[in-house]
């Protein structure tokens, strides 16, 4: 008799506990302002992306199509995955001396783990981490691209050396 009583009282207790949990979930149903779910693709305009968010490596260019990269290959050495390939070329200056400049800054986004070590290693602040996201493509080869724009060149003005 006691066992039957215990059996039914345990079922009753379980139902009470379930109702307690349901009361909590139900209170959120009645207060939709407390719900935190975001409707992602629809709220793309109002989405808050922190300024340090690491989306990809990016090379800023100024209005004259000039960048800061001196092709020193420190970023290539710092990269643990081999996602960076610096292709440089030698050009002849008007006074006859030869100078090594950046030809292509080849970046493989597909193998990049966004560890920020290349940005950390860059002595001339030529590359930064960008906030862009949504990089889905149909072909892996589209994830390999040049960061320096066509026709861009090194910034002529010497920037202050980093302290």
């Amino acid at each position, binding site marked *: 008799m006691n066992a039957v009583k215990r059996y039914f009282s345990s079922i009753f207790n379980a139902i009470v506990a379930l109702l307690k949990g349901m009361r909590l979930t139900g209170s959120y149903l009645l207060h939709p302002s407390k719900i935190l779910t975001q409707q992602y693709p629809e709220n793309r305009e109002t989405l808050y992306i*922190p300024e340090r*968010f690491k989306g990809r490596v990016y090379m800023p260019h100024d209005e004259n199509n000039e960048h800061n990269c001196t092709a020193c290959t420190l970023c290539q050495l710092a990269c643990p995955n081999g996602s960076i390939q610096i292709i440089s070329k030698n050009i002849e200056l008007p006074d006859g001396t030869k100078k090594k400049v950046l030809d292509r800054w080849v970046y493989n986004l597909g193998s990049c783990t966004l560890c920020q070590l290349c940005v950390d290693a860059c002595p001339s602040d030529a590359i930064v981490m960008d906030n862009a996201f949504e990089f889905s493509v149909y072909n892996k080869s589209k994830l390999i691209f040049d960061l320096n724009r066509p026709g861009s060149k090194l910034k002529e003005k010497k920037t202050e050396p980093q302290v």
Partner: protein
Amino acid sequence: MEQTINNRILQSSDDEFIINVGPQHPSTHGVLHLQLRLDGEEIADLKPFLGYIHRGIEKMCESLTYKQFIYLTSRMDYLSAHINNQACCLAIEKSLQVEVPERAKVIRTLMAELTRLASHQLWWGSTGLDMGAVSPFFYAFREREMILEIFEETCGSRLTMNYCVPGGVMNDIHPDFVSKVKKLIQQFKANIHEYDELLTGNPIFQSRTRGVGYLPKEDAISLACSGPVARASGISCDVRKKEPYDAYDRVEFEEIIASEGDCFARYRVRMKEMLESMKIIEQLIDNIPAGDYRAKIKGIIKPPAGEYFQRVETARGELGVFIVSDGSNKPYRVKFRTPNFSNLAALKPMSLGAKIGDLVAIMASLDLIIPDIDR
């Protein structure tokens, strides 16, 4: 050939039954493969098989420089990624004998405790999910989302942050960091009663965990268990207390120890650890010392030849990093002593004689991360 097969597969007699759980099973939280010998519904024998997610991280570390291999350790125990990075940085700093600035120490400790909090919250949600309670998962993700937003703002990523560098941290903290952490503490304290209402006080949950998966103290010691699994069996093993690193020597917190050794004890230890993490954060958040966040270190790190060992307390137990240096810019050998590997060994003594339905509860209470076991 026949002998190798016999070694791999458990033998069964006529009235026993062999089933495979995993590698694709939702309750194993990853690609863990368990082979069970069942006597009716009771587990008579159990054998885990590993290797489904082996990436050879230890070997990969040998081909990368000291600065580069740190990011790889985020991929071991991905829920305590920051603490893994911190362990590597501490080992490298020990080898170079670099003094880390006070500010960096406090920031690292804060981040480590936030990581522990986020990890335990995910564990709490998935424990409920394993036991058939779906809604706790969403409540756990609410507070976890706040922590991940803090990480995103300061470190730039949400999970594998790579925020620790030898000599300090990558960036200074974001201006909003302090106010956001304070808001998180406030909200967590306001919401902690919901955790108990949904799961802890539930009689169904209690009857599924109380007295299930008992791990005696002697077994826990001989199997080298660590973290909440060992502490729930009554072993005091918190590395933060025993060998304080970074800023843990200046904070006051309690080491949570339970003596029951069952699933519910492990649950309670983790729940109380969340409150202790909160206590540590509260003590540090108001006095982050001013100064440098990063000590100046040479571009190419070449530690003197020798062996260096550092252990830290991750969300799951004790992580040891052992580095052998031959004086070059790449480590000669790196060995990680990961907490989940030894905690997995406790699965067999816990589940022998238990019902097959209890296995899910036992595995949930172990909080296994499979990439950490395999590496």
